[in-house]
C-alpha cells in the first residue's frame, strides 16, 4: 500500500505541477478581463521554447542542471512578454478578444513547431543531451511545496494587495476603474506578465519534466485542459489548485483504464470529456459569492474614446 502511494505521489507530481501553474496563470489573466483563448497555442509554444533553450544552453554550458533551470526561467520570461503583448493588444485596440486570442493560438502552434524544430535540427540531432528533471523522491516533494507556495503568493497578490484589487477592478469594469485613475492598459500589461510567466513555466515543465523530450505538436490540448481547470476552480487560485489535484489524479490514472478492457480511444478522449464536464458542472452552480463569480467584463472590448 505504501509503495502504491509512493508510486502515485511520484507520477502525479509532474502532472499536478504543470496543470496547476498553467491554470493559475490562466485564472490571473482572466481575472483582469482578458479572455484567455491564446492559452493552448502559447502552452505549445512554451513547451517547444523550453526544449530549444535547453538544448541550446546544454550545448553552450556543456550540459547539466544549470542549463535546464536557465531554460525554465527564460521560457517563463519569453512567454510572459508574449502574454503581455496579448493582453495589451486586446486592451488598446477595440478588437474582438476572441479574434486576437485565436490568432495567438494559431501563431503559437505554428511558431512552437518552428522553434522546437530549430532546436532539434541545430542541436538535438547532433547528440546534445539535455539534463531533464528527474522524478526523484526529494524533487517531487519540493515541487508540490513550491507549487503551493506559488499559488499562495498569487492568491495573496490578487486578494490582499493593491495591485490585485486593481487587476480585479479592471476585470469587473475597466471604464470605472480607469475613471478612478487606474491605468487599464498598464494593469493588464502587468497581469499578462504574471499570468504568462506561470503559463510559460507550466509549459516548460511539461517538456523538461513531465515528458522529458520534445516532438512536434507536443503540449497540444494540454493548454485547454489547464483552461478547463481554471474555469472549474472559479479562477480563484487556491480552488484552482484543489481542482487541479482531482483533475491530475484522474488524468494520471485514466491510461490505466485500458487494463480494465476499455478501448484505447476511450481513454484518449477521457481527459477531454472530463474537462468539458467539469467546466459545465462548476459553471452551472448558481449563487456564488462575488469573489468567485466570473469577471463581469471578461471578453468585452474596452473602448475609451470618450475620454480623449
Amino acid at each position, binding site marked *: 500500500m505504501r509503495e502504491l502511494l509512493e508510486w502515485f505521489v511520484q507520477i502525479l507530481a509532474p502532472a499536478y505541477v504543470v496543470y496547476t501553474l498553467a491554470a493559475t496563470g490562466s485564472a490571473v489573466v482572466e481575472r483582469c478581463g482578458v479572455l484567455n483563448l491564446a492559452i493552448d497555442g502559447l502552452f505549445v509554444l512554451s513547451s517547444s521554447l523550453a526544449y530549444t533553450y535547453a538544448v541550446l544552453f546544454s550545448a553552450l554550458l556543456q550540459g547539466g542542471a544549470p542549463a535546464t533551470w536557465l531554460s525554465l526561467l527564460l521560457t517563463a520570461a519569453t512567454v510572459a512578454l508574449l502574454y503581455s503583448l496579448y493582453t495589451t493588444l486586446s486592451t488598446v485596440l477595440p478588437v474582438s478578444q476572441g479574434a486576437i486570442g*485565436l490568432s495567438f493560438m*494559431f501563431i503559437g502552434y505554428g511558431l512552437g513547431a518552428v522553434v522546437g*524544430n530549430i532546436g532539434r535540427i541545430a542541436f538535438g540531432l547532433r547528440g546534445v543531451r539535455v539534463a531533464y528533471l528527474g522524478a526523484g523522491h526529494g524533487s517531487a516533494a519540493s515541487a508540490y511545496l513550491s507549487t503551493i507556495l506559488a499559488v499562495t503568493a498569487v492568491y495573496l497578490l490578487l486578494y490582499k494587495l493593491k495591485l490585485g484589487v486593481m487587476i480585479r477592478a479592471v476585470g469587473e469594469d475597466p471604464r470605472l476603474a480607469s475613471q478612478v485613475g487606474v491605468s487599464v492598459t498598464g494593469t493588464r500589461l502587468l497581469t499578462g506578465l504574471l499570468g504568462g510567466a506561470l503559463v510559460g513555466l507550466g509549459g516548460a515543465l511539461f517538456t523538461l519534466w513531465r515528458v522529458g523530450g520534445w516532438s512536434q505538436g507536443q503540449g497540444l*490540448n494540454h493548454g485547454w485542459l489547464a483552461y478547463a481547470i481554471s474555469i472549474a476552480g472559479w479562477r480563484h487560485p487556491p480552488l484552482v489548485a484543489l481542482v487541479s489535484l482531482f483533475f491530475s489524479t484522474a488524468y494520471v490514472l485514466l491510461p490505466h483504464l485500458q487494463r480494465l478492457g476499455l478501448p484505447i*480511444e476511450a481513454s484518449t478522449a477521457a481527459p477531454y470529456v472530463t474537462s468539458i464536464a467539469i*467546466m459545465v458542472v462548476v*459553471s452551472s452552480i448558481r449563487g456564488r459569492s462575488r469573489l468567485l463569480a*466570473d469577471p463581469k467584463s471578461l471578453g468585452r472590448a474596452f*473602448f475609451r474614446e470618450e475620454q*480623449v
Partner: protein
Amino acid sequence: MVRVSLVVTKRYRERMITSTPAILTVSLVLGLVVSYLAIWATVGLEPASFFATFYQTLASYSGLLEPFLFLTLLGAAISVAFYGSYWNVGAEGQYVLGMLGAMYLVMFSPLSGTLLEGDRASAAVVKLAAVILGGLLGALWSVIPGFFKAFVRVNEVPVLLLMNYVAYCLSDYLTGGPWKGRYTYGYIRTDMIPEAARLTVVPGLEILRYEVAVAAAAVLAGVYLVLERTRLGLRIKVLGTNPVALRSLGYDDRTVILTVAALSGFIAGLAGALRLLGYDYRLPYNIGDGKTGFYGYTAILVAWLSFRDVRLLVPSAVIVSALNSFGYRMQLSLKGLLPPGVSAHAFSQIFIGITLAVYTIARVARDHSVRLVIER
C-alpha cells in the same frame, strides 16, 4: 513627467480609406511572408523554389476545385456561426461526425440493403438520407457546446476544440472496432462504400461531383437568404452584435444561440457526409492525423476573411483553397528537405494565425483612428 498614451477614436464619417480587398491582400501577403520566413528559418529553403511552387499551384486551377467546394461549405457553416458570435472552431469535429453519419447509413443501417438492389431511384434516396443524417449529427455535435454556452454560460471555444478530438476518437473507435473492414489489405480502416452510394462524377471533370457543386451553391444561396431576408437572420445578427438588445426586444437569446449552433453544425456535417460519399469512400484509422486535410480549421480563415459578409465567402474560399493547395504542394516538395519528425502543418498554422491577426487589426485601423499622444 512624460505620459504616453494611445488614443483610439471611432471614425464616424464614412471614410473608406482602405477597402476590404486591400486589407485582405495585405494580410494574406504578410501571412505568406512570415510563413516563408518560418520555413526558411527551419530548413533554409530559398525564395525561388518557394515562389515557383506558389506559381505552379495557381497555374493548376482544376486541382483547386475540390478544396474550394469543401472550404466554401465549411466556410459558410462557420460564417453563419460568426454572424451570431458563436465562435464555431469545432467545424472539424462536426465534419467528422457528418462522415460517420453517412458511413453508418450507407453501410450499417437497415437502408444499406437497398443499395445492393441496383435501383437508381432508391439509391438516390439512400444518399440523400445519408447526407441529411450527416448534417443532423454535425448539428448535434455543435448544439452540445451551444447548449452549454446558452444555458450554463461556458465559453464555447474550448468545448468546441476539445470536442474535435473527441470526434476523432469516436471515429477511430468505430473504424478500429465495430466498423473495421474485411477487405483492407491489413490496414485498419473501414471497407469501401458500395458503388451505388457514391456521388456522381462529372464526365470530363473527374475532380468534380454534381451533388457537391449543387450543395455548395444551395448552401450559399440558403445562407444568404436566411441572413439577409428572414427575421431569424436579423435575430442572428443582433445576437452577434448586441445580445442585450435582443433580450430587450423580447427574444430569448438562448434559443437563437441554439439555432445558430444547429444551423452551423448542420452545414459542416453535410460537408463531411458529401466528402465521404464523393471522395473518401471509407474511413481511415487515426483520422486526426491530417486525414481530414484539417479543412475544418482552414475554413475558419475563409469565414474570417469574409467576416459578416456572405458575398465575400466565394472569393475568400478561392484564395484560401489556392493557399491550401500551395501549402500541400509545399509539403510535398519539402518532404525530401524536412528532417524526420518535422511536419509542414506548422507553416500553415503560422499562415492562418498571422493572416487572422493582421486582418483583425487592419480592420480596426480602418474603422478607427489610432493616435499616439505624448503629454509633458
